[in-house]
């Protein structure tokens, strides 16, 4: 996962994905799969009415894939993201993350998985305002019980990876939007997670900064990181190499970028609702 590659890793094929997601329940996916989700269902009770947010979602993401997840509001995109991010557990189905069956874990175990395997990047950055950039990036390491010296060293490295090595002591209010998002990305990476999960990461940035940030993700992906980007903007989604579209709680399409872009230019943004 951390080996440098200069060429794009091969995408998983539809056949491969179908094979792994329809395999017998309980069969552990091989090491090459970052995520295998089988038949995920999630329902909410909204004051007496049952809302079926996810109606049986199969999703397989191989290591080092760069996937965008799109869908209009009400498509279940957020629910799926929360499940992928281990912030929530499904009502039915299996979710394998990096070879572990996460869907049946309790709160403490989920917290541990979030700490070790998932790097969140939020639209609103979500940095701690009274801590420096370095302290913000150290936080996952604090929860992992890493000692002070090692923490500082790893956090510094992460910040250098996103080209903020000279801003370690700055507080968020002393940084631009783009810099804040870089700090957030460094924080997401510091524990060497299985997946980087970004939720509308450029939503609060201007177009130029957005491009900068997308370049960072591109660079990380080419270094071997598995990246999952949740977005509603087709332009942003097109930076990924595979685009999954949700509608009404189910996956409507799951195709490589080129095919998606084609359909986009032919049918316009109705492709994503």
């Amino acid at each position, binding site marked *: 996962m951390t080996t440098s590659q200069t060429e794009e890793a091969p995408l998983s094929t539809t056949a491969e994905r179908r094979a792994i997601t329809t395999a017998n329940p309980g069969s552990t996916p091989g090491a090459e799969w970052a995520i295998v989700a089988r038949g995920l269902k999630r329902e909410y009770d909204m004051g007496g009415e049952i809302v079926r947010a996810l109606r049986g979602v199969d999703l397989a993401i191989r290591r080092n894939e760069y996937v965008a997840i799109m869908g209009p509001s009400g498509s279940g995109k957020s629910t799926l993201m929360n499940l992928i991010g281990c912030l*929530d557990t499904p009502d039915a189905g299996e979710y394998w993350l990096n070879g572990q069956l996460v869907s049946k874990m309790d709160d403490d175990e989920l*917290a541990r998985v*979030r700490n070790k395997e998932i790097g*969140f990047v939020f639209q609103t950055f979500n940095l*701690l305002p009274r801590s420096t950039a370095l302290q913000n990036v150290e936080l996952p390491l604090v929860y992992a019980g890493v000692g*002070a010296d090692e923490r500082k060293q790893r956090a510094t490295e992460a910040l250098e990876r996103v080209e903020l090595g000279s801003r370690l002591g700055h507080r968020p209010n002393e940084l631009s939007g783009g810099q804040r998002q870089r700090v957030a990305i460094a924080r997401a990476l510091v524990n060497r997670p299985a997946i980087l999960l970004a939720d509308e990461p450029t939503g609060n940035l201007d177009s130029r900064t957005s491009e900068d940030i997308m370049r960072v993700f591109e660079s990380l992906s080419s270094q071997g990181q598995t990246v999952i980007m949740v977005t509603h903007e087709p332009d942003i989604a097109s930076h990924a190499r595979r685009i999954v579209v949700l509608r009404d709680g189910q996956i409507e399409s799951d195709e490589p970028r080129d095919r998606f872009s084609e359909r986009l230019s032919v049918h316009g943004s109705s492709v994503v609702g």
Partner: protein
Amino acid sequence: MQFLEAVRLALAQIRVQKLKSFFTLLGVMIGVMFLIAVVSIVEGMGRYMQDDLMGKLIPINSFELRRNPNVNLGDTDMATWEEYQRRPRIKEEDIGPVFAALPPNVAAAVRSEDNITVSSRYVPKPKQVDAQNVTASYFDIKKLGVTEGRVFTEQEDAMGTPVTVIGKDVKDYFFPNVDPVGRELRVNHIPYTVIGVAESQGSAFGISLDKFIVAPYNSPLKQLTNRHGVIDGIIVQAPDEQTMLAAEDAVRAVMRTRHKLRPEQKDNFVLETADQDLEFWNKIKGYLVVAGIALPAIGLVVGAIVIMNIMLVAVAERTREIGVRKSLGARRRDILAQFLVEAATLSTVGAAFGVGAGAVIAAIIAAVSPLPTHVAGWSVGVAVMLGAGVGIVAGVYPASRASRLDPITALRAE
């Protein structure tokens, strides 16, 4: 080191919102302040009573046979006062038998006192001073030394020589700028010669103890202080507690016989020791201790409630932050610990300020009132621990709520 991180964050929070933090801390601070102040009064008074005062007024291992107690630190009720008035006086005739009954190696002195008008030719206005008619052993027993001149001897006492040792205030007033030794002091118009100036006795509760003269028992003053053969007391000094108790028993037996008391009747005289007067102080101390517990308790309870509420607000305001921390891998207990530490830090800082404020109040009390104070080291330790404890107790509910927040909902918060 999550603990240190949480402490650092808590301190940063306090620094950022100084005024709000100050009001949050006020309850704990006041509670601790009362604790420190009251304890320092009790300690100061206790030491003073034990070491200073009682040592001065009533030496260790000594007692005085008197009709009524000399040192009266409280109000005597009517019944007791009337009973005191009915008691027979101690007489000269009692001296012989009492002295005879004492165990060996015990010192004893006779004393009579009165307020007498005294004058000298160096100042126009005469004044009243406390005049003590005593036998020569008085100086040894009371450890009363002189800074100038000497004390009088047994012979001078036997001969009734009109010599006197005066207190510092008497010297300052009646012999300003002049060496009093060898000069004349008129004691109720009777000429006495000053032979010595006593060491300063300091003051008790702001009242000077140096306004006295000491004259031999048999000197002319006797006619004034010993009217009708009455004396004020016999002071007995023993080398150790055991001997003193034996001496007490002996004197008590003699006096009860002389006063013809039946076994069931109580003593109609007093053998005044330092302990009895300390008893009164212990009673006051009891009240002070109650105050010293009640007042701080109120402050601390109020402080705890305030901290709990402020922490609840903090949790509400930082809901999103809690969601972020959980998304980064914080478990329930991490969040719980973080907010507990914040509450405890807040409270401990308040306690620290309280210690400072309490010490200042103790210093002010010592400076402007006759009460002595002494800030006790143990009270500082207790105060800080109480501070931390209050914070933890106050923080449990808010921290528990914070830890149970659902991360998804929390992340959506404002």
